[in-house]
């Protein structure tokens, strides 16, 4: 199989994107002081999180595969993460 970038891999998936609201909120100061930012970047298989030049963590919520791993490694209060609204988000065809 030829090597593909993460966005290329995600492009083979089906998503129903929520244009109105993100299901993820990073609280920047706590994300930085607790190391949560670095951890969620490291564990996320969809590369939802990235560190910007100013040190803040950006969130590409539409790429989320909804596994919840980021929440599992986040320090209390640094990350709000819940499932997208009903019928929205990743829609596996294989699973």
């Amino acid at each position, binding site marked *: 199989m030829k090597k593909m970038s993460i966005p290329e891999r995600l492009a083979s998936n089906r998503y129903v994107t929520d244009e109105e609201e993100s299901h993820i909120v990073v609280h920047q100061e706590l994300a930085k002081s607790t190391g949560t930012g670095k951890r969620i970047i*490291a564990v996320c298989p969809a590369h939802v999180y990235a560190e910007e030049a100013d040190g803040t963590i950006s969130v590409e919520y539409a790429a989320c595969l909804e596994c919840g791993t980021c929440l599992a490694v986040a320090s209390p209060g640094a990350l709000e993460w819940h499932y997208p609204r009903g019928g929205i*988000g990743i*829609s*596996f*065809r294989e*699973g």
Partner: protein
Amino acid sequence: MTEAVEPDFDVIVIGAGIAGCVTAYQLAQAGHSVVLIERGETPGSKNLSGGVLYCRSMMEVFPDLLTEAPVERKITRNYIQFLNGNSAIGIDYQDARLADPTNAVTVLRAKFDAWLAEKCEEAGVFLMPGVRVDSLIKEGDQFVGVQAGEDALRARVIVAADGVNSFIAQAAGLRKKEPTNHLAVGVKSVVTLGKEEIEKRFHCSADEGVAYAIVGDCTEGVGGGAFLYTNVDSVSLGVVLRLDDLIAKGKRATDVFDHFLEHPFIAPLIKDGELAEYGCHLVAEGGLAMMGELAANGVVIVGDAAGLTLNTGLTVRGMDLAVGSAVAAAKGIDAALKSGDVSKQGLAGYRTALFASFAGKDMETYAKAPAFLERPRMYKEYGELLGNILYNAFNHDLTPRKHLVAVAKDSLKKSRVKMKDLASDGLAGVRAL
């Protein structure tokens, strides 16, 4: 005393995965009114597994499973591999007895769970897809319903089958945030190769297939392992990485997955394949230590939501235990509904039934497995040691041959593994597994 609001259903089940569907199906068959609420646009669309279902428990619920359900291949070959950077040692276990009666099948959950939900509807379950449950409704000490956006639904019993993240179990006070050594992230690709190519590449007949369980360099030494399972015309392959160790080693999950896919002993297996889907899943690995209370007043938890998963080193199980917990929960809920007592005490029959069944007993048997699997040498040193012993046995470099025991002793001396590690890990392994 105020008049109680009449419930809309006897039972609300949250989550149309295996645990949720089987609970809903059995309760509907027992004559109860059941609603099955699923947040995905269709049942199965949020669900993902590695893919091996040890299917005997499911066949007790659905006797025609193998002919009716969209299962992929019967697993009759198990390949256990220690993978090193430049060597690999495998145990290739193939057995015709695993086909009759069928022991395990591969499944792709988006297809399989859609079929399960159909069976539920046929049994009279009211299916509500595309609805996310936001919270539980509590009156006094009793949970009496669920809130989904503006809508409220009431039932005598609520079943949280909402998976490993189970926000509902947390809301009911049945689960807390898990420590990261109890959790792993699974990263997986489904790669299409074609039916004939699968059979050629993996030496299997038309409806049979292989399950690889791999440990070592596949995770770059991170606690966990890798897998490769054959489907009808694709393979599911991925890595499972224990979160505490992934973070401690400072690695990125996707880099480890790429390292696995590009490993010279793995890449040929998926050569010229087309990516069909890329997915991931949080895996509970705490075993019995992760399981707590299973019921509160008016609520029970089943499957992944209850922490019912097992990694025994050789087999990784979740779906069969989900069935086991669902069958036990349906029994407990049926008795509670009939007696009219749906308090925590009234629902206690679930726990009793679970620990009387294979699912609860297996959780107890393998209670020490997670701690054993946290011992670090499994993921690097032992594979390399084995590889070096075999290399020295097979590499005829014109130095005089030594007896195999001497070769092994030399290799052990050069390895970071000490004799006392071998003894300690060996003893712990025997006790845990």
